[in-house]
Structures are given as C-alpha cells and as structure tokens.
C-alpha cells in the first residue's frame, strides 16, 4: 500500500513533469492525496488525464463566470479547480456555477472541497448522474464509491449551499424538550448560591 505522503509527492512531481508550474503541482499533490484519503480514485484519474494530454487538447478556464461554455476542447480540471479555489470568494455570490464539457471531473473535487472550507459553506457538486456533498473539507458524501467516474462531464453544476439547518423546527423543539430533562429546577436558595456572579450588577 502506498502512503499518502508518497501519493502526494509523486502526484506533485508528475504534475510538474506534465507541464504545470511548481505552485500548481503542489496543489495537485494535496488534491490527489485528499481524493485517495476519501477513498476516491485520485491516482487513476490523474494518470489517465496526463496520458490523454499527450494526444488531446484542453482549454484553460482562468476566469470563471456564472455560466461557462468551453469552445473547442474540454476544460482542464486542474486549471479550473485552481481558478475556482482562487476566485471562490467572488464566485459564491453567484449561488450556482454552470459549466459544460470538463475533463476528468473527479480531479476538480478536492479544489471544491477546500473552497467549501474557505467560504464556510457546503458545496453541492453535480455532473451528469453523479452528486457530491462537500462538507468544509472534512467529509465528502457521494454514491460514487464503487462507480467509475466519467472521463468527460457534459453538464456540471456547482451550488453553494446556504448555512441553514437541515432539520425542521419541530424536530429541534422536540429534541430540545427532551434535553431539558437533564436540567435542575432552581429554588430560591440555589438562585442565590449556585451561580458565581453577584446578585446585582452594582455590587
């Protein structure tokens, strides 16, 4: 079994060898490490993408908009991921980003995961039939565990989820009521003696 340290170092060096700058290669190393840590096929996708770069062209999306349509070639997932990471504080105002035709969409995921941590919002990442919930770079929820990830994603949506409860007020109240059963009803004497502060604000 390869260690995560080996995975990161090899991915970084391979990315440099594939033509990216050292700074970008460092980002890819961390990204593939994250994918493998989450149990996703980082090494496999990166390897296949670099092989396909030898014979195919990809488009760099440096400045991301609300809707992004590639012209001739699929978008490079690495440059898109890094642009997204760098621009995320501007992009979150769009609520939803759409793009079409991106290669190896799994490779974008670690950049979105880190972006989720930076802005403090969960991110919903959808392409074709696959969905991921990215949770502040702590967890990734997905059903893709045993599925093969597509080489090209035709339609991609990235949705910034507002910070709100994912339960009803009714559920909360019910649970809170139960939790109150751990509290002690304060008598007059307890009110006087059990708290640390004085009885008036002027003492």
């Amino acid at each position, binding site marked *: 079994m390869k*260690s995560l340290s080996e995975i990161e170092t090899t991915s970084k060096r391979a990315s440099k060898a594939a033509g990216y700058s050292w700074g970008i290669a460092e980002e890819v190393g961390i990204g593939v490490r994250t994918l493998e840590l989450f149990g996703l096929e980082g090494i496999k996708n990166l390897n296949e993408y670099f092989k396909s770069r030898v014979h195919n062209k990809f488009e760099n999306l440096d400045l991301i908009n609300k809707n992004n349509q590639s012209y001739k070639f699929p978008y490079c997932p690495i440059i898109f991921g890094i642009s997204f*990471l*760098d*621009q995320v*504080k501007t992009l979150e105002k769009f609520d939803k980003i759409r793009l079409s035709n991106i290669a190896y969409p799994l490779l974008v995921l670690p950049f979105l995961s*880190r972006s989720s941590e930076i802005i403090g919002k969960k991110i919903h990442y959808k392409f074709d039939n696959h969905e991921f919930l990215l949770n502040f770079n702590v967890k990734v929820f997905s059903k893709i565990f045993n599925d093969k990830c597509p080489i090209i994603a035709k339609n991609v949506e990235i949705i910034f989820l507002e910070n709100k409860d994912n339960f009803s007020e009714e559920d909360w109240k019910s649970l809170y009521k139960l939790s109150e059963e751990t509290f002690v009803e304060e008598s007059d004497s307890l009110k006087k003696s059990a708290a640390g502060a004085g009885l008036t604000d002027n003492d």
Partner: protein
Amino acid sequence: MKVKLRDPNIIMKLSRLGSFHQSKLSFLRSFLEEFKDWEYKKDLFDLDENGFGIAIYSFKKKDRVYSLICFANKINNDERSDRVIATKWDAAFTLYDGVPSKLDIERLKNEVPKQEVGRLSYKELTLSRANKSLRVFDHVVENLSSGKQPDLNILDKVGYLYRTTAVYGSGKFGLADRFRIKNREEINGPFRLEMMLVYLVRQFTFDQVNHVAKSKNPKIAVKLDNVICKNLGIGNSTGLGMAPFIVNHPTLLNNWILSREIALKKIREIKKVENSKVDLFKKSLRNSIKNITSWNTESKYQLKKINSLLTDVKKTIDFLEKKFSFDTEYPFNTIYLWLEKETCDECIEYIVSIMMEPFDEIVKPLVNQMSSEEEKYFNIPTNRTIEDLRNIIEKRYPNILKINFNKKENIKNFWFISKNKEEPRYSNRFEDKGYELEQPLAIARDIKKLYEELIISKNSLTIDKFLSKNSNLRHVVRRAFIIEKFPYAEIQDNTIAENVVPIDMLRLKLSFFGALKFDPRSDKWLRICMFQGAPLPEELRNYDQQWVYNF
C-alpha cells in the same frame, strides 16, 4: 524589562544557522525526557556467533508498545559504504507500531534490509540502516574476548560502534503517514520516533559486540563496561537529503527556531537568577570544554570554527569568573550582549544553548510547540492585494531583495532530484546537465522574481487575478504569505550562490536533532554523533539531565 526576539534577518543567515548547537530543546533530549518512565525490554536476541540474526527491543507504557526490529546481516568489506548509493548494510532496522507477529517479522526480514527498494506498511513507523565502524568494532571484540576493556583512546577518536546512513519516517517507502500517529501524546515533538529508533540501535550495538566477543571466547570474554557504553553514541553520515527539508517545511522550521528564540528572550528577561541555577549554568559551561577539545575533524572549515569556539568559550569563562557578578539585574541579558560584542557566532549560539540548562520551566513548555500543522497554512489568501504582498516581501526579505540574480555567481548552483536514488543533489548550473529540472528550492531568486513582477503590477489588484497570469510564481506567493505569519520560517540567504556552504543547512537541522561533533567530510556531507554520553535504557528513570556535558 522586555527583551525583543532576535532579528530573523541576522539569525536566519546560513552562517549563523550553521553555528547552532544542541540544547535542551533538541529532539533526542526531549525524547529521553518523554520516554524515561516507559518500560524498556529486550524481547528477542537471536544472533549467531558472528552477530548475524534478529533482535527486538521495545518501549511499553499501558497499552502502547513500540518495537525496534533489528536485522544484522553479513556483508563483504567491499560492499560497505556510507554513501546513499550503497545497497547493503551491516544492519537494518525498523520501528514497529506494537508487538510484531511472527508473520510480520518474516515479512520485514525480506523488506527492511533492502531499505529504499523494499516496501514497508502502515504498521512500521521508521526505517534505518547502519554500518559498523569496522576499526572500532573489531578492536572492541578483540579486547572483550581477551577479557580486557578496549583502548579508550581508540574509542574516543570515533565515539561509536555503528553509524547510521539514513533514518526515514513519515510515509516514506510505505511507512505510516504522520496523520496516523500525530495525536499520540508521547509523539508531541518532531522526529521523536526517529530518535527512539536511533537510541535503541545504540543499545543493539552494545549487545551485539558483547555477544560476538562472548561467542569468540566464552570462558574469558568480559562485557563492555557500562561507563564505556555510556560514552559511546551512534554515528551518522548525512548528505544533502536533509537540506531541502528545512526549505520545504517553513512553518516547522519557524517553530524550531522560534522556540529557541523565546527561550533565550525569557532567560534574558529574568531579573534575579537563583544561585543554584547560576551554578548549574557555570558547571555545564566549564564541563562543556571537554566536548570541544574532543571534537575531532580533519575539515579545515570546521577546525577553524572549533578553534575560535574554544578561544571564545575560555574567554567567556574568564569574563564570568573575573569580571562579572550574577548579582547584577538581568544577568543573562548582560552576558548575551557581551557575547554579541566579544565572541564569534559559533560561541554565541553555543552559550545560548547552555543558558537553557537551568531553566526547565521555560524550556519544557516550548518543546510541545515545535511541531506544526503545515496544511493549515497551505491556502493562499487570494482576496488580498498586490500591495499587501509587496509589503510582506519588503519587510521579510530586505537582504534577499538586494541580491543581483543577473550575476553568474548568484545563480551558480541548482538543486535537483537524482533519478537513481530519488535523493536531492546540488550541482553547477553552468557545467552540469539537468538544470532545466531544477527543484523549487531557489527561494531567494524566485522571491526576487516575484517582487520584480509585483512592482510593475497595480497595487489594488487581487492575488487571484495576479495568479491567473503568473502561475509560475504561485509557489513563492504561497510562501510569502506563510512567512508573513512565521518570521523564522525562511533562510535569509541565497541557497544557489557560489559561496553557499550546503552543510550549514544540515548542521542547523542536526543541531535540533541533538547531534554533537559535526565533522564535515566535504561541503556536502558530514558525520556526527548522537546520544554520546546519554543514559543507558536501564538508567532512564533517574538520569543526569546534563549528561551531554558530563560524559
């Protein structure tokens, strides 16, 4: 009185960093302190009459066990080499997380001796190999088997029976990643498991030499005297592999140096020092003279430094005894200011280390602050502006910005990774092949390049926009934002210049390990000694804290 932390632009110069010495903050000393009350055991010692076979040693506390597995092998004399290109060693070691099963031992028997070309698993924490100092080992066997103790003059010249030639950890060759163990309380300090491995290897070398001597002459042989054992350490040959580490881990480097600087600052701020602490400082300083006079090297570079050190340490002792009173307020501040004025860098840093000896209450809390969660600082704050970044660089790199990188002598060398061993190397850009595959370790040059780009960019431009056009500078943009928060994270020198001495970088790291007696064999590799004078495992529960000056 408030004393300022020392200026990083002075302390982080390579010549100064290359004058650092071990101290109470050093990792091998903090390792001993952490593991002193662990149960030590020799679990297995299955060597043949020539000392070849398997041995296992362990440290145990409650449910936690760390086991050193040693594989001692026969090699021919012409196969023995300290260089990283070697493929066979007298002994190979791994530190196993727990108690190894028979199956584990069988698996490791095939992998550990192969070192870099073997495969380890997440159950193994560190990996190492070592070669005998043949002259010393054979001499000790000869004498012990004849019923005599060895000639101390011969032992003193070398200081060890074996020297390691590499110690690996943190996920190399399949070893456990640091994340698996980083929350363990006993590992709350850098390189603690590497130190454990080296310490237990030292004990193996004593047990092996005793075993071989006894096998040779069972009736007459005697054991190596414990006092002699204690005065022997473990040697280490270290090459350039260590140098990139301190460039690639800026926040970690900062935390090491910052701990040292905080310790010094706090000691200088003590108004009145207790007599017992004064005595301990003076005693350690006096005793340490032996460490300097027994420091053997043939390196002219190091000999010059040792001579200056000896002269200046004697001068300091003389000053303290004849012209200084510890009754004055803030005595260590006065001493420090005197050192700055009157002594060489090597002596200043030597005495700064010794100043820490009496102050456990200052040093111990700092030991726990010497690790780093590096990933926390990886993200670039891309919403900040060019003006912010330019200000950071002007503040943190004033000397670097003065360097003219158009001059050949300032870009003479380059760092690369060798294909054969995947190890860092350093070479002449204008004479050797491969500079197009240069590693991103020429930080000074790249920071200057970034600065030149920033001064022609609009002040209000945000970093995300700048990066979309300058991805080749991304690694130094990240770095500058890290350095903003960590003043001691950067070497304030040009590491590719003609006049750079790479071993200064090794010396810095090794001083934090706790190494003694730096012996440069060229400008690119050196030999050192670790744990010389350290307590033996059976003595750990109650040992002399100043052992490093008292052997």
